[in-house]
């Protein structure tokens, strides 16, 4: 296997500037080695002979190249308790704010979209049971939705392998899962029953609207990869699916500054989240 190419200073800067503009991610000198490796991997995968030809491909997002390239830096495999700082923020800050507004008048509704094979919504359920003192005092609905029907089937089955469980302490695995064999665990039926799954294409208002209003939406590592037109539609759809004052959480390398101006940024101890404004018009 050939040695990875070193990018010249100008190539490195060109790449960094493009990725920054497009995604908001900042790459600095310490990350340079990883970036070069990634570029080389993608150049090989796409049959690009030079950085210039690869960059042209990246720029035009040929066959979703931006997603392929950036994926490596978002550690995009799904597992339980991924981005647990957002789960901490959920119980420490987001839910208390929502309850202060609505009390027990209506259930707390949380949406994980896309939910893929279910790790994220099940994580929310487990986290609430383990970490939210008020979990028995409030009605909670957790929905997981995805465009991939096969992933949803797997999510409903609730069977997971070692990698998916790698961030969970052993006592939680023992508490919430049953081992099927050495390699697979099934999440308890009570938890499987506590999450409802549905199909959705978030770009289609006709599909998102029936899901109703949520207090918290987790929408990680998908909006940033859409083209401009789809991003606008998805952002507006998700805005409609948020109750006024509701929160939307993105992937930790994503920023609404590259996605949509509809939401207001809120900084909490554990996470930056975005909020649908409460019902006050912003008349100029």
């Amino acid at each position, binding site marked *: 296997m050939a*040695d*990875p*190419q*070193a*990018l*010249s*200073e*100008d*190539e490195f*800067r*060109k790449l960094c*500037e*493009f990725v920054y503009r497009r995604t908001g991610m900042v790459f600095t000198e310490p990350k340079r080695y990883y970036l070069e490796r990634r570029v080389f991997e993608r150049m090989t995968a796409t049959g690009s002979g*030079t*950085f*210039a030809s690869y960059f*042209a491909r990246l*720029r*035009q997002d040929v066959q979703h190249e931006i997603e392929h390239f950036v994926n490596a830096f978002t550690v995009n495999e799904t597992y339980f308790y991924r981005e647990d700082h957002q789960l901490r923020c959920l119980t420490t800050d987001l839910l208390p704010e929502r309850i202060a507004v609505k009390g027990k008048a209506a*259930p707390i509704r949380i949406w994980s979209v896309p939910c893929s094979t279910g790790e994220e919504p099940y994580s929310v*359920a487990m986290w*609430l*049971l383990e970490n939210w003192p008020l*979990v*028995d005092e*409030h*009605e*909670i*609905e*957790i929905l997981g939705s995805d465009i991939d029907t096969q992933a949803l089937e797997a999510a409903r089955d609730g069977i997971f392998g070692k990698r998916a469980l790698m961030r969970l302490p052993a006592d939680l695995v023992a508490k919430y899962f049953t081992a099927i064999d050495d390699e697979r665990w099934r999440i308890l039926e*009570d*938890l499987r*029953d*506590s*999450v*409802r799954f*549905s199909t959705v294409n978030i770009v289609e*208002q*006709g599909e998102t*609207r*029936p*899901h*109703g209003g949520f207090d918290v939406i987790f929408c990680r590592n998908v909006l940033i990869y859409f*083209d*401009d*037109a789809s*991003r*606008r*539609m998805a952002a*507006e759809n998700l*805005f409609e699916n948020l109750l006024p004052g509701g929160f939307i959480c993105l992937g930790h390398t994503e920023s609404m500054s590259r996605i*949509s*101006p*509809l939401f207001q940024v809120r900084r909490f101890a554990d996470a930056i989240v975005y909020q649908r*404004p409460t*019902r006050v*018009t*912003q*008349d*100029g």
Partner: protein
Amino acid sequence: MPLVRKPVDRAAAENPDAAAVLQALGSNDADERWAAARAAAQVSGGATALIRALQRERDANVREAMLTSLARIGSDESVEGLLSLLRSDDANSRTGALDALRSMTGLQRDLLPRLLQDADNDVRILSCELVRALPSDEATDHLCALLTRERDVNVCAAAIDVLTEVGTAAALPVLQQCGERFRDTPFLAFAIEVATDRITAESTRRG
């Protein structure tokens, strides 16, 4: 266990009543105007009504929805509406219009020659941004044509900024000439130097 399944709310099948939608664009309730703005993309007369509504809409989010709908409609009328917002004295309108135009891929090819020659400096500056979406050769052609005739410093700066990302070797002679024309403007000299370096960037082999 308190975690409970609930049936999905079923939304009523909707075929927007055009007259109601267009009227709701003027509602006192921002939520109604928002919903109408989104629905207006699919009713006849939508573009005309949206353009008119944008002249007085003050809620930033409702404006955003209106602009998205205009972009989705994509008719000549909606494009002209967006272009007139691009010429606005109001920065917010210019930004909104540019973002909406940017989302209309395929449109840029038809519009760009005209926009890059617009009498308004700001329009030419903003239009350089639209060039970014094009393939490198095309983008370079547009920006070089602009730079060859451009007299405004800030328009040149905008074009050069885009060229640092998209420019091919074809841009180098034009950049050099531009540098000579504006040799007394330090920022442009800097910009041209960086653009030249980025365009001629080449990998080195490790080891």
